[in-house]
């Protein structure tokens, strides 16, 4: 159970550079939700203070961004300056990664649709382009030779 908790804690910190920063200042509070042994606490604290943690966080973002850029490149461009803000909000809402391109792109697409519906994002061509790109990718995957 403890190893499972250690892995879960590590994953949660990698998914959130902000939480890593908070944990460097107040480790006890940030790890309170995890059931860790003393050795695991020492390990996690050392890793959080290791410069390599920023590489972990960066790779997490690269890996999550890649499916979105691959499937929805024009949607991304149309979002313009809002794109980065939206993808960070999406990751905060869905911290579990789905590295299968179509699934992750669909999830991000649903997120954008919700943001438009709630007025957080302006309506406009972005929704039409989003749907077109999702449909095109789906067709590309399902077509035969």
């Amino acid at each position, binding site marked *: *159970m403890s*190893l*499972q*908790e*250690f*892995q*879960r804690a*590590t*994953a949660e910190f*990698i*998914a959130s550079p902000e939480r890593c920063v908070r944990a460097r200042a107040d480790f006890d509070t940030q790890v309170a*939700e995890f059931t860790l042994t003393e*050795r695991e606490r*020492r*390990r996690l604290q*050392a*890793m959080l203070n*290791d410069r*390599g*943690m*920023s*590489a*972990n966080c*960066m*790779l*997490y973002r690269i*890996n*999550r961004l890649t499916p979105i850029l691959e499937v929805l490149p024009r949607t991304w461009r149309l979002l313009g300056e809002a794109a980065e803000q939206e993808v960070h909000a999406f990751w905060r809402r869905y*911290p*579990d*990664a*789905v*590295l*299968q391109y*179509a*699934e992750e792109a669909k999830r991000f697409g649903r997120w954008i649709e919700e943001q438009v519906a709630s007025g957080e994002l302006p309506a406009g061509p972005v929704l039409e382009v989003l749907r077109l790109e999702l449909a095109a990718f789906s067709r*590309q*995957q*399902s*077509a*035969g*030779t």
Partner: protein
Amino acid sequence: MRRLGVGVLYNRALTDLLLAEQLPVDYVEIIPERSWTDRGRGATPRFLEHPRDIARIEALAQIYPLVAHGVGLSIASAAAFDLGYVEQLARWRRRFGLCWVSEHLAAVQVSGNGVVDHHAGVALPLAWDEELLHLVTARVRHAVDGLQCPLLLENGVVFTPVPEPDMSEVEFLNRLTRESPCRLLLDLHNLYVNSVNLGVDANAFVRDLDLTTVAEIHIAGGNEFGGFYLDSHAGACPPQVWELLEQVAAHSTGLRGITFEFHESYFPQLTAAGLERELARAGEVWRATRRERDVATGVSASNG
């Protein structure tokens, strides 16, 4: 296990070249997960295959021996082992006549706090402890039983080593191959990445590793980003990887293949000619070191 020679990790940029048999390769390595959508444990059907990708694999299988390189088994996750995933790999092993299946010695799935099979987005740093060794050795036995073919596990890249380990990574790998039917996929570029970022002594690593357990070697290139050197499969292998390959291949008496990996997004820079050069050079190492491997194992030079 057949001795195959030099292979390439398949990506879509390679389709035409491979189908036209224009590359000097003896086998092709495929990533099964790129050809299906995994809807998760409990879903029916769980795996939705992509017809276009399947057709390409079937066409490749008509020409080349295939091996599989999985990315989703997460054999080092403390969460429950995914036997359904093993069964899917076993189905593919039979369907495409895969010579072997390799996977990463990695934990990418985490569970807990009411969440099951949460994908971490990256391979988590592993603690080289007795606890993990027991966990992985038991799972390797299950996996090999299910696959009915050799299972190779690959050494990974780490940016934040887990402190206070029970043993070194090399000791862990040596014990893993001694205490389970697992063979090694030694990724020399991953080792090089760790040497650049962490100061790992790559020469000492391969000196201390039981090279007789290495069945496959991966070679690749990378690039720098954000102050780190990454295993981005960005094109040609750096000189240090070639040096390691020459050193390691001669002593890896169980070696069955050397696989060059690159990411398709870098193909315009690598070019077909550049790819051929990498494969040809790997072929030279394969042939030059084969005699030494044969002598060490007492195999006739004309055999295999």
